[in-house]
Each structure stands twice: as C-alpha cells, then as structure tokens.
C-alpha cells in the first residue's frame, strides 16, 4: 500500500512517515502543495494524507484540483484547524476524512486503514486467499495455521497480491503500490522479492497460490495449477 504524505512541517512529516512505515506502508513525502499535487498526479497512490496549511498551494486547493482531474484516491486531511467550518470546507473540497492535530496516533492509523479498505467489498482487516491469512492489524501471516515470518517489503508485496487476488498484477503495478518514488521499476528487485515471498508462502504446500503470468506479471489464485 503506497501512501502520499503532504506535510510542510518536517518533524511532523518525519514521525508520521516512520509510523506508517512501521505499519508496512510505503510512504512518499511532499513538503508543499505543488510538489504534492505533482506526485499525486503522476503516481497511483492508495491514499493521500494532506495537511491544510501548506506553502505554495494549500491542502484545500490541492484536494479540489485532484478531484477536478478525476483522481479519486482516498484523501485524509490532517490539520490544526479544528473549527467546524474548516472541517466542512475540507470535506466539501473532496476529502474523505478529516483529522485534527494533535491526534492519537492509533486513531490516525485506524482511519488510514478505513480509507484503504473503503474500495474493497470485504471490509474485514484479515485478508484470506485459500488457507493463507494476513492480519492487517498485527501484520501476522499464516498459512494453514502456521505463521510465516516476512520482512516489511515482503509483507507489503504479499498484501498487495492478496488485495488483488484473482487478478493479474503487473510489475509496474507492484512497483507503484509497494515501493516508494525512489524505486527503479526496471530493476530485477521485484522478481527477487516475489520469489522470496513465493518461497515462504508456497513451499511445502501442493497448492501454489502465487503464479507467474508470462509476459504480464503475477497472479494470486485459489485454484491449483
């Protein structure tokens, strides 16, 4: 899951990014409205966290412009302005949620999860494909009841594959949703990581869940090959 954080206060941005990264999210940072708008227009984020008081272009403007360009990524507004009128302006500009600073970090994470699963039909925090289970809260992954240890990147990759189960996922999609903007999508890293995950998930089971699709990418499917 790849998140764009637009926040001009560097220390604020720093701990939010750290907190999100610890939750296995991939985070891109923008320090002003223009940069945020540019990143949001050029990358397919799963969520945008937007401060309102920003240099160059404020959060309300950024939000409006994104919605005008039909970019319907969930947007969480984060601001010190807690006046009801400010909240209304924020939400009416196209934001999906509004959180005022200072906030409880756990609540913030919960709201992030809500916005991320909003597009899914299944609203539970546990993802399931066959006997493979992924708990988004504890980040525990089990297959047939046996726990699988994964690194942060491996977890993010598996989560993305499971969220798009039964669909072909291209390398570009993986690079856009699992890695941040500094990642070079032409490198071989995706193949390497997919192999790591495949090894940990499918080894020892007759049903292979992660399959390669020649010339396209990968697919996670319940049915055995």
């Amino acid at each position, binding site marked *: 899951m790849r998140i764009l954080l637009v926040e001009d206060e560097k*220390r*604020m941005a720093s*701990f*939010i990014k*750290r907190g999100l990264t610890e939750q296995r999210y991939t985070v891109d940072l923008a320090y002003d409205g223009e940069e945020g708008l540019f990143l949001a227009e050029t990358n397919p984020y799963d969520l945008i966290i937007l401060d309102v008081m920003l240099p160059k272009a404020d959060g309300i403007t950024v939000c409006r412009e994104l919605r005008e360009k039909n970019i319907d990524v969930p947007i969480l507004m984060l601001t*010190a302005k807690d006046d009801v009128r400010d909240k209304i302006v924020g939400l009416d500009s196209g934001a999906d949620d509004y959180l005022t*600073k200072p906030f409880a970090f756990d609540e913030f994470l919960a709201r992030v999860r809500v916005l991320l699963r909003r597009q899914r039909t299944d609203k539970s925090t546990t993802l399931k494909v066959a006997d493979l289970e992924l708990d988004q809260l504890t980040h525990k992954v089990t297959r047939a009841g046996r726990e699988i240890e994964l690194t942060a990147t491996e977890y993010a990759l598996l989560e993305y594959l499971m969220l798009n189960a039964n669909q072909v996922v291209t390398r570009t999609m993986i690079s856009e949703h699992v890695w941040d903007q500094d990642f070079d999508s032409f490198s071989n890293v995706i193949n390497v990581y997919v192999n790591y995950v495949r090894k940990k998930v499918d080894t020892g089971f007759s049903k292979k869940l992660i399959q390669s699709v020649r010339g396209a990418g990968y697919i996670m499917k319940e049915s055995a090959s």
Partner: protein
Amino acid sequence: MKLNSIRFKASILYTSILCVILVAFSGSLFYVTRQILYRDLDEILTLKATKIADILTSYEDLKKTSPPPNTLINKLFGIDYRMRLIIDDLWRSDVRALGLKKDYTLVLNNNGRAIIKSGNLNNNIAALFQSQFPFDLTNRFFKDVKGKHHKFRAINFPFSYKGKYIFVIQVATPLDSVIKLLTKLLYFIGASVFFILALTSFLGSFFARRILKPVLNITNIADDISHTDLNLRIEETEVDEEMKHLIRSFNAMIDRLEKSFEHINEFSSHVAHELKTPIAIIKGEIELCLSETRDIPEYKRVMIVSLEEIDRLVKIIKDLLLLARLDYNPEVFEFETFNLIEFLEEIFSHSKILAMEKKIEIGLDVPPEPRMIEGDKIHLNRLLFNLINNAIKFTPRGGKIIISLSVQGDSACIAISDSGIGIAQKDLSNIFNKFFRSHQYDPDSPPGSGLGLNIAQSIARAHHGTIEVESSPSKGTTFRVVLPLV
C-alpha cells in the same frame, strides 16, 4: 412611552411651547375684546349722559324764559307750579324717549341731592350707588359697580349750566350681556386651547415616533448583531439626511468591527495552529515510540525532539506575550538618549560570537562622530538581534554580514546586509505577517516562532521608526531600520 424618551420629551416640549403661545394669544384676544366691549359701553353711556344733559339744558332754558317764580303774581296764580309740571312732563317724556328703561339714571345737584331719578332706582340700588359710586362734581369717570346679583357700568358726568349751576348725571347700565358674551368667549377659548393641545401632543407624539422610527430600526439591528452575524447592515432607504448619516456611520463602524473580528479570528487560528504543531509532534513521537520496544538511542532521539519542540512552544508563547505588550502597553519602553555608534559597536562584538559557529564574517561600517538617538536600549537590542539572527540563519557557511549606519537628514539608517539565500519576490510582502515563514532553509534546526519580524516592527514603530527590506534571491537580503535622531 418612557418619561425620558426623546419622543416623550419632544412632544412635551412642542406641547408646552404651543400652550404658552396659545395662552398668550387667547389672553390678549380676550383682553382686547373686553376693552372694545367696555369702550363701546362707555361711549353709549357718555352719549346717554350727554343726551340727559341736553334735556336738562333745555329744561333750564325753559325755566329761564318762564316768569320768575318768586314774583307775587306767579305765586298767586300758581303759574310757576303748573309750569314746573309741564316741564317735568316734558323732561320725563324726553328721557323716556331715550329708551333708558334698563338703565338707572340719577341727576344730582351740587349738594348731592337727587333732582331726578329713574323709576327703577330703588333704595337698594341707591345705597349701592352711594357706597360704591360717590358723585364727583369735577371729573368725568367710569366705574364698575358690583351689586348682589348684577354688575353695572356707571358713568359720572358732571355738567354745568352756563357755568353756574352744577349737576352730576350718573347713568349705570347692567353688564349682564357683556359678561355673558365674555364668559362664552372664555369658555370657547379654553375648550379650543385644550382641544388644540390634546391634538398637538397626540400628533407630535405620532410624528416623533415616525421620525424616530429609523432609530428604533437601528436599535433592533444593533441588538441582533453579535460576533457571529457581523454581516448585518442597516438599509438607508427612505430616511432623513441626519438618519442617513447616522446609519452610514453605524454601518461603517460594523465594517471596521467585522474586519477586526476577522483579523482576530485569523490570528487566533494561526496561534492555535502554531501551538498545536509542536504538541502534535511531541504527542506523535511519544505515541509512536511507545507502540513498540525501542532501543536507547531512539528513546533519546524522541526526548531530544520533544524537548526542542517544548522550547519552541515556550518561545512562541513568550513572543506572543511580548508582542501583545509591545503593541498595547507603551509603558514597557524606557527611553533614554544614547550614542548609537557605541551601541552598534557593542552589538557588533556580540554578533561576531554568534556568527563564529557558521564561519560567517561580520563587518561594521559606522561614521566616527557620535550620533545620539532616544530609545529603549533593551528593545532596540532585541530588534537588531532579531535581524542579525535571521541573517545568520539564512546565510550559508562562510558568508558575509555587514552592519552599517548612514545618516539621512535627521534620521539614522541602520542596515544589516547579508550574502544569504535571499527572499523570493512574492514572499517579500508577507514577511512582516504574523507566523509567516519562508520555506524552511535548515531542516535540522527547529523553526522560529514566526513572530520575530513582527516584534522588530513593533519596536521600530514605538521608536517612530520603520523597517524596510530589500532582497534578491541567492544574492542576499538587506534590512534597513530607520530611526529619528535627536
């Protein structure tokens, strides 16, 4: 209607002025009418007395032409007596012809003995005449005589026959009809005055209410206005010029209030934002840190960040309080006259220490002769260090800062020029706004309060001075503080 309302006062004032005018007018009307009526009456009385005098004259004339009464023949034949009877008849018929039925007539000789009196003159009236209307042989005059039931107007009319015999003719006529007329007039005037006053006070009150209606409107709208609906305005249609003026002033006052409320709102929202950001960082860092077991350097880092953010909070609060004091408490300034050159040399030596860390070179360029100004050393110190600290902050390592003084007429211009990153043209107009910060240059140092230049400007203003800024990006910035010399 309240007793101290303008409406009440205005209608009372109108009514009382009108009352005085009406009373004076009807009083004089009454007096003049009465005078005219009495004069007419007096003329008639004079006329009557004259007529009687004429008759008396002709009677005396007749007496003269008749034979002398004391002659023996006359006495014997009784001519005189008959003569007298004839003359008396003549007299009576003549007087009767005058139509003096209602009048009381009395003719006295010079001894006061009644020669002739009219038939209606009974004893009561005669006594009245004697007590209130004594005869006078020399002067003609008029007098009011008061009876038990009636009033009379009487004339005393002395009259001499050929300068020898003197008679007094007294004629009195009842005043009943005149008094009746005057009483009616008085009643009429009284009723009219009462009616007019009642009508005027009612109409006055009515029109006062109409004239004051805009005031009531203004009051109602003023009552409705609170800090949440300062957008209300009074319409100035269909009102008098004075009211228009009042309404315009009132609306202008609300405009100003609305503006300053907006300003305060904006300011407090800024303050909230500024105070909340460090708190959000401390809270976030600590919560995140506590969510898992961390190693000691991480705990240390969180502590350091928190401490720095707390320092930032303290600085913001201190600066806000200082700004409020500078702007609204002029007594915080203690003015003294001192030499600006010495003062700048002192500042220069302190600045060198501050700039040492970033290896920034600081220069001082001041004229040798002393320049005296009147100012508060502590606050001017704060002003200049604010500018110098900014210069150091936004100047890269190895850069240069120059503090210089030039005299322009009767003011001193202190310039602080740096070779720093400069300020973008579009930011130049904003740098004196509260909480404005240009894009953070040094991410490692926590940002300032965003109030430094505001404080500097407030101090300059208290010294009747100004601060100007000139900058070109990536070349440097010059702040000029202009202060009046003594």
